[in-house]
């Protein structure tokens, strides 16, 4: 088995999930709990990766982060490296691609928190931020765990975006799904089969865990909130 690819995928998924927690929780909180205008546009934007072909997303990330783009050249000026075809570039693409898989379960769980409890917390003097961290997040925990599991599993299995943005550099950007693709290209079906079986088992376990958590908390995770 291609252990370096497996470790790379795990590293990428862990980093992606952590970033999604930091970015996704406030974003989902805003989506679920505010009634501000323009919410629908952000809703649609977050859900975009669900319907967009990964190659399209990857293409735009590639263009946006390429050496001739403002972002890409700024990054290169600071670090001395290009961001595309690197782990960091892969990370940016993964975060964008897995965004709905984190934000939607988060937002669904936040929206299911009894509005009454939120207002009670406000009347007890708790700021919006304190209400969010002390009341909303703890009560939405099953949904947050679901979002974490799903975005982690989704990142481990991604292919198209990785190929577009990361290329196929062993140890740097060759993830587990690309390694399977390479094995098949090289007619090494036995090796591809072992890696595929591992990924299958992992994905099943991740989903089983998610649904188990949903069942205990008594609500299903809708794809669109």
């Amino acid at each position: 088995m291609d252990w370096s690819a497996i470790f790379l995928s795990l590293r990428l998924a862990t980093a992606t999930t952590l970033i999604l927690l930091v970015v996704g929780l406030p974003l989902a909180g805003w989506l679920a709990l505010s009634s501000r205008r323009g919410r629908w546009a952000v809703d649609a934007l977050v859900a975009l990766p669900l319907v967009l072909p990964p190659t399209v997303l990857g293409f735009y990330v590639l263009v946006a982060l390429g050496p001739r783009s403002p972002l890409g050249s700024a990054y290169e000026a600071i670090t001395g490296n290009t961001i595309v075809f690197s782990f960091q570039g892969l990370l940016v693409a993964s975060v964008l691609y897995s965004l709905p898989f984190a934000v939607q379960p988060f937002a669904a769980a936040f929206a299911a928190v009894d509005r009454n409890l939120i207002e009670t917390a406000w009347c007890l003097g708790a700021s919006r931020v304190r209400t969010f961290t002390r009341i909303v997040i703890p009560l939405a925990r099953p949904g947050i765990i679901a979002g974490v599991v799903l975005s982690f599993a989704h990142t481990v299995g991604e292919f198209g975006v990785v190929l577009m943005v990361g290329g196929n550099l062993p140890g740097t950007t060759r993830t587990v799904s690309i390694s399977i693709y390479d094995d098949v290209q090289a007619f090494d079906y036995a090796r591809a089969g072992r890696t595929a079986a591992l990924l299958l088992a992992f994905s099943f376990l991740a989903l089983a865990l998610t649904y188990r958590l949903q069942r205990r908390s008594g609500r299903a995770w809708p794809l669109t909130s």
Partner: protein
Amino acid sequence: MAPHLVASFLQRHGPAVSVQADLELEGANNPVMVLFGPSGSGKTTILRCLAGLDRPQAGFIRCGEDVWFDAAAGIHLPPQQRRLAYVSQDYGLFPHLTVEQNIRFGMDAALSDPRDRIETILRTVHLEGMAARLPTQLSGGERQRVALARALAREPRLILLDEPLAALDLPLRDPMRRELRQFLRAIAVPSVVVTHDRVDALTLGDRMAVLSGGRIRQVGPVHEVFSKPVDLAVAASVGVETVVPGEVVESTNGLATVRVGTSLVHVAQAALPLQSVFVCIRAEDVTLETSERRDVSARNQWPGRVTAIQQEAGVVRVTMDCGFSLSALITRPACDQLRLEEDSAVTAVVKATAVHLIPRDNPA
């Protein structure tokens, strides 16, 4: 000096529905104001505006020296800055926090010894030793007490209670109602209680405001509003009956005697302590006679004089003075047969079982 709440505001929900509230709440003597009305009459809207959860379109809300809301000046303090306690219908206890954590949530973080204070408060609401329980491990009555304890811990300037007894099972309601009244009197913080239940209103309130169709129709002492509704809308929502304050002077053999003004009222009622009560008599339970009789089963016969006769749909409402003001609902032919007119002498006959008492812990 206790704060004084003055509120006058308008909240629109679309072109057809609006709620207009004009309220004044004295801090000192009569701290409990009941907002009474059928569902949909705008009670909860008023409470939410007072709490700062909804923003009215026009008007102002002032508490003591502070301006909580002023549409003209563009002031709208969020609930966090109003230092009030809002207890929702289902109490709003945080299910993932223990009793102690729930109470502590609303307390001033700068407090030097919160533990002592929490224990004092738990004693006040008779929940000693329950600090570590989760809300799911409590009965309905205990949950209400935790909600009250949490409200009290905040040292609020105003307490808002939305249908505080609606979530309780029927047998629990009676004792909890009395407990709540004692609690509200003891803490002496001005409170606004929303209810659609007549007994709640009579037990809990010092004053009441009757809402109908998004407007406050009448404000006054509770028994007065019940006895003397100013218009038909109020009469329809409070259900017309005579409500007068009295004192239980005797209670034996399932029959209580209550002094009301200069008259005595006999009531079929299980043993009752000698205390203040509201005496409630429905107008349709009052029979009128031209003179006193000896051979009747009814325990109450009050001679008096007719003070007013009003025609209503198919019936006649006779108001008489028999030591207190009493309404009777009789038919047209009965009225003609008795030849009733203003100032004629008449005797009201009421069975002891038709009189209801609502205990009060203080002279009203």
